[in-house]
C-alpha cells in the first residue's frame, strides 16, 4: 500500500506528540508535582496513531488506564490532558478524573477508565447506538492483554457479533498484565484468536509498526462501515516505562521485573525510531522535516505544561459538583 507524504507525516506527528508529552511527565511525577497514578504510553504509540488515523472525527473511542495516547491520537486537547494529570480545574475532567479518566466528547473520545475491561461494554453500547441510528460511525474499544482475563470481553464479543455491531476490539498486547508476564496468566498466547469462536474476523499485527497498524485498521473500519463488523485486532507491543509511573519504582529501587535484555530488545524496536528509519530511507521525507515536527511537538508540550501550571486547583467548596446533573 502506498501512502501520501501528508499521511505519513501525520502518523509521525501523532506518535511524536504522544511520546514527548508522556516523557515530559516523568520529571513532574518524580518530583511528586504529579501525584495521580500515570500509566505512560511510551513505546505503544504506533497503535493509537495507526488505529485513530483510520477514524473520522465522528467515530468513537473508549480507552483504558493507559490512555493518554488514545486521547491525543483522537484529537483531545494536550493542554487539558496535562492539566488533568496535574489535578487542575483546567483539565479535561476539571481535575476530578486524573490520568486514568480522560474524556474529550467534542472529538468523541468518550472516555477512559481503569477498571480492566470496564469500558468494553460501554464501547459496545455506543456501537449499538450507531447501529440503531444507522449513522455509519465506528467505535474503537482499546484494551490491554490483561483484559482478556475478564469475562465481560467474551460477553461483549458474542453480543457484538450477534448484532453485527460496528466495533473494533483492539487489544494492545504489551506482554504484561501489570507485573504478570502473559505466559503466567494465559494458557495460550493466542489472544488474536479470541474473536474467532464468535465468528469475528480477527487479526494480529506488529503493534510497533505504525503502517501495519494503520493498514489493518483501515481494513477493519471499512468492514464495520459496510455492516460487516465487528473486528478483533491484537497488536503486539511493549511499554518502555513501568506499569505505572516512569519505572516500576518502589521506594527508590528499580523493580521492573522484566528481564533487562528483553527491555533492550524492545528498545531497538521503538516504533518512532523505526518509522523514522523508514521515512528517511524509503521515502523522500528528509531528517529536517522530521526535526521540525519534533520541535513543534516540544513547543506544544511546553505550552501545555505552562497552561497546566497556571491553571488553578479545583476549589474545595466545589467538591460535590458534578455528582448529578440538575
Amino acid at each position: 500500500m502506498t501512502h501520501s507524504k501528508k499521511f505519513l507525516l501525520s502518523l509521525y506527528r501523532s506518535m511524536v506528540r504522544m511520546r514527548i508529552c508522556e516523557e515530559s511527565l516523568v520529571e513532574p511525577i518524580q518530583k511528586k508535582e504529579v501525584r495521580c497514578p500515570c500509566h505512560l504510553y511510551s513505546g505503544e504509540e504506533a497503535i493509537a496513531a495507526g488505529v485513530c488515523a483510520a477514524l473520522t472525527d465522528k467515530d468513537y473511542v473508549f480507552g483504558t488506564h493507559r490512555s493518554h495516547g488514545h486521547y491525543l491520537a483522537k484529537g483531545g486537547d494536550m493542554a487539558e490532558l496535562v492539566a488533568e494529570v496535574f489535578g487542575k480545574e483546567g483539565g479535561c475532567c476539571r481535575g476530578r478524573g486524573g490520568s486514568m479518566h480522560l474524556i474529550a466528547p467534542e472529538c468523541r473520545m468518550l472516555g477512559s477508565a481503569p477498571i480492566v475491561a470496564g469500558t468494553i461494554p460501554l464501547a459496545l453500547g455506543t456501537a449499538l447506538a450507531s447501529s440503531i441510528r444507522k449513522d455509519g460511525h465506528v467505535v474503537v474499544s482499546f484494551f490491554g492483554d490483561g483484559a482478556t482475563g475478564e469475562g465481560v470481553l467474551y460477553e461483549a464479543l458474542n453480543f457484538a457479533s450477534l448484532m453485527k455491531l460496528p466495533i473494533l476490539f483492539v487489544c494492545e498486547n504489551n506482554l504484561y498484565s501489570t507485573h504478570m508476564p502473559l505466559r503466567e496468566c494465559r494458557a495460550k498466547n493466542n489472544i488474536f484468536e479470541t474473536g474467532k469462536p464468535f465468528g469475528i474476523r480477527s487479526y494480529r499485527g506488529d503493534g510497533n509498526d505504525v503502517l501495519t497498524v494503520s493498514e489493518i485498521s483501515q481494513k477493519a473500519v471499512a468492514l464495520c462501515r459496510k455492516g460487516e463488523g465487528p473486528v478483533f485486532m491484537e497488536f503486539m507491543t511493549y511499554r518502555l516505562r513501568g506499569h505505572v509511573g516512569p519505572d516500576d519504582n518502589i521506594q527508590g529501587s528499580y523493580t521492573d521485573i522484566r528481564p533487562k535484555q528483553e527491555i533492550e530488545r524492545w528498545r531497538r524496536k521503538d516504533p518512532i525510531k523505526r518509522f523514522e528509519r523508514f521515512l528517511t530511507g524509503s521515502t523522500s521525507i528528509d531528517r529536517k522535516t522530521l526535526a521540525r515536527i519534533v520541535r513543534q511537538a516540544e513547543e506544544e508540550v511546553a505550552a501545555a505544561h505552562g497552561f497546566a501550571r497556571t491553571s488553578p486547583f479545583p476549589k474545595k467548596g466545589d467538591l460535590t459538583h458534578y455528582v448529578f446533573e440538575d
Partner: protein
Amino acid sequence: MSSRTRKLSYSLAINEALHQMMAEDPDVILIGQGVKSPWYVGNTCQGLLDRFGARRIIDTPVSENAVTGLAVGAALAGLRPIVVHPRMDFMLYAMDPIVNQAANWRYMCGGKASVPVVFWGIINRGGEQAAQHSQALHALFAHIPGLKVVMPATARDAKGLLIAAIKDNNPVVFIDDRSLYSQKEAVPERVYEVPMGKAAVRKKGADLTLAAISNMVSESLRAAETLAIDGIDAEVLDLRTAKPLDEKTLLSSVRKTGRLIVADGGWTTCGFAAEVVARVAEKGFTDLKAPIRRVALPDCPAPASRTLEEAYYRTREDIVRTAKELF
C-alpha cells in the same frame, strides 16, 4: 369510563409508561433478558416489540455485565436506554457498569458527560424462590453516590416514577416488586412524572409515623387500620424514592407524632431503614417520645420452605406488634 377513574394494574402502568415514552422519544430503547417474554417480565412489556420493533426492544443473551454496560455506553452516545433485570439478584453480575461506570462517570469527567440510563430491577419475593431469586438490594444502590433509587408502591407511582426516571439525565435504579403487579388503582392516561425525592402521605395520623417504601407501604396502611381499632392514630408515609430521600416530609411527620417505625423490605443491618433512622436521629432527636424502631428483614438469606418464609418476611402484624411496644 373517564380517564380520571380508569383503573390500571401496577404492571400495566409500567407498560403504559414504556409505550408512551418510546412513542414520545425515539432515543428511548429497552434492553434486557426476556423483554419479549411474559415469562420474565409479566405483562410490563406487552405490545412493545410489535409497536417499536427489534431495533428498540432488544432481548438479550444472559450476559448481565455486558448488556448493562452496553446500556451505559448507549446512554453516553445520547440514547436513553432502559435495561431490565427481571430478577434483580442477577444485577450483581452488573455491579461494575452500574457502580464503577455509570454512577461515577459524570463526576469523574468533571460534568462533561451524562448517563441517562434506567437500571430496572424486579424484586421477586416469596414463592419459595429462596436466596438467589428473592433479594431486595436497593440499599446497595442507594449507598452509591451518583445513583438515584426509586421504588414505587402504587400503580400510579409506578408509571410516574418510571417516566421521571427515563427523563432524568442521571442513572436511576428503578426497582419494582412483582408482588405488587396485580394491584389496581386509578392511573391517569396522560404522561406525568412523579418527582423524585418527594414522599407521599398515604394516611394522616397524630400518634405514630410509619415510614415505608415499596411493598411495605401497603403493609403499613393495613397495620394502621388495625392500630386505629386500638386507638393509635398512625400516619403512613410512602417514601417512594430511597435516594433522594424526602427528609423534610419525614422530619415534619415525626415532629408531629413523636414516634417512628421504618418499614422496609430489605435487610436490617446497614439497610435502607437504617439510613432513614439516622436522618431522624440526627435532625429530629428532640421530637422523639420513644425509641425509633425498624421493621425490616432479619440478617438472613431468603429461605425456601413456606414455614421459614413466614418467619422471614415482615408483614402488617410485625408493624402492629412493634407499634404497640412504643406506647
